[in-house]
């Protein structure tokens, strides 16, 4: 690659970072912190603070009845209910969400005593997720930030002339030309977190843009594979039919899927074919709540057992993208690693901006060429 192209790539790298710098900083900071959002959520909400090791004495049917009775007066009727079961993210509690005119209300019930908990007051978890996934607006800008991050990664690697030689080089300068320190730190962080950044940027960009890119790719492919969502026929329900209790369904789901941790009992009570889905987690690189057992709501018969681990390679691949991006597959230490390395793009954004300003400052000086050499 000749010198002119390298210079142009340097400009693209700078501008790609500069244009989305603030947004990248917000997405990366919120994403890094969001790795621990369940823990932060519990700390911020007294309603969620119950000892996680206490025995569960209240079964899911009793909990559902009590939580439904606690619905706010202005709660809208819902055809699809989702009871959150006590699990590692919500230890010792049942939870049920209601939609009201003022927004969503979350009610919780102590699984040991059966007492209703005080109402949830803090929504830090939702805030962090909304900020990271939608920048408080939509997935599209986050996807654009991800695409710029990909361009930054690619151009950064290309303009870096001595990537292997400098992998341990860090020149600390407290006085004089701090640009060298910024440049070394920028390159060092960029190099050592490169693989992680590629993984985060590719999975994150796809997760953000899939809704927009799916029809484009499908259009280019000629519409060969239509969506496989099944539309179920909804018939009017027959009077006298009663929903089966869900506690035996939960037990059955646990026995059918090895190492299954039930997290939700989701009810679709509309029409003539009501179902109860016992969703949950299985160990490994598998998206949360992706495995499930579906029961007929009226008869209690099993309709489908879906363990992601038993599916084809490509299904497992699809369900691995989210845990790979969010890092919730490996416990505390993996999450801590994601938090630390997840902050790196934010650091790169800041050091990159500082370098850009330093470069602008030095642009009028005769040593411009020399300093540019130091950056590359």
């Amino acid at each position: 690659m000749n010198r002119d192209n390298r210079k142009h790539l340097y400009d693209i790298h700078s501008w790609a970072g500069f244009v989305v710098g603030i947004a990248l900083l917000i997405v990366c900071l919120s994403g890094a912190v969001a790795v621990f959002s369940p823990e932060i959520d519990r700390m911020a909400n007294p309603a969620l603070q119950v000892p996680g090791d206490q025995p569960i004495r209240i079964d899911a049917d009793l909990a559902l009845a009590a939580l439904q009775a606690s619905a706010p007066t202005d709660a809208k009727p819902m055809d699809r209910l989702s009871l959150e079961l006590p699990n590692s993210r919500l230890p010792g509690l049942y939870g049920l969400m209601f939609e009201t005119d003022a927004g969503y209300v979350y009610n919780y019930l102590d699984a040991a005593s059966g007492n209703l908990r005080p109402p949830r007051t803090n929504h830090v978890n939702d805030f962090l997720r909304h900020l990271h996934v939608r920048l408080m607006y939509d997935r599209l800008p986050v996807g654009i930030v991800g695409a710029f991050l990909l361009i930054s990664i690619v151009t950064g690697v290309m303009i870096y002339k001595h990537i292997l030689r400098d992998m341990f080089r860090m020149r600390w300068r407290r006085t004089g030309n701090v640009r060298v320190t910024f440049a070394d730190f920028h390159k060092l962080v960029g190099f050592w977190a490169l693989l992680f950044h590629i993984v985060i940027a590719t999975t994150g960009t796809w997760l953000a843009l899939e809704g927009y890119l799916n029809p484009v790719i499908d259009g280019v492919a000629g519409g060969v594979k239509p969506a496989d969502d099944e539309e179920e026929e909804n018939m009017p329900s027959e009077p006298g039919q009663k929903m089966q209790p869900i506690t035996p369904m939960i037990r059955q789901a646990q026995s059918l899927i090895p190492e299954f941790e039930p997290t939700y009992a989701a009810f679709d009570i509309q029409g003539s074919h009501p179902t109860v889905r016992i969703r949950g987690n299985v160990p490994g690189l598998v998206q949360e709540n992706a495995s499930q057992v579906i029961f007929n709501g009226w008869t209690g018969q099993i309709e489908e057992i879906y363990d992601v681990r038993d599916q084809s390679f490509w299904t497992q691949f699809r369900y691995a993208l989210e845990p790979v991006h969010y890092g919730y597959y490996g416990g505390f230490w993996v999450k801590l690693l994601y938090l630390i390395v997840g902050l790196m793009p934010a650091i790169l954004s800041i050091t990159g901006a500082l370098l850009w300003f330093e470069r602008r400052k030095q642009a009028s000086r005769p040593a411009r060429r020399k300093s540019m050499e130091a950056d590359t």
Partner: protein
Amino acid sequence: MNFANRFLAGFFGGTIAALLCAAAVLRSLPAEPKDAMSAAGMTLMLVWPVLIVVAFMTERGWLAWAVIAGVALVAAFLGWGLA
């Protein structure tokens, strides 16, 4: 001019070729639609920046176009020719 040529090759040619690669994966992968779409999406995310790299790394501008056109042709062959 050389840079504009490579920019066109990388960002426009590369985007089209990467989309063709993703579409080829979608057409040819023996998987459920949603699974094939995830694989196609990741192909797009990985091939697209690589083609941008190719556009700027090749010695001459026409070679960048040739490589990207070659990738697009291979994708078209795999996705449509063999299907």
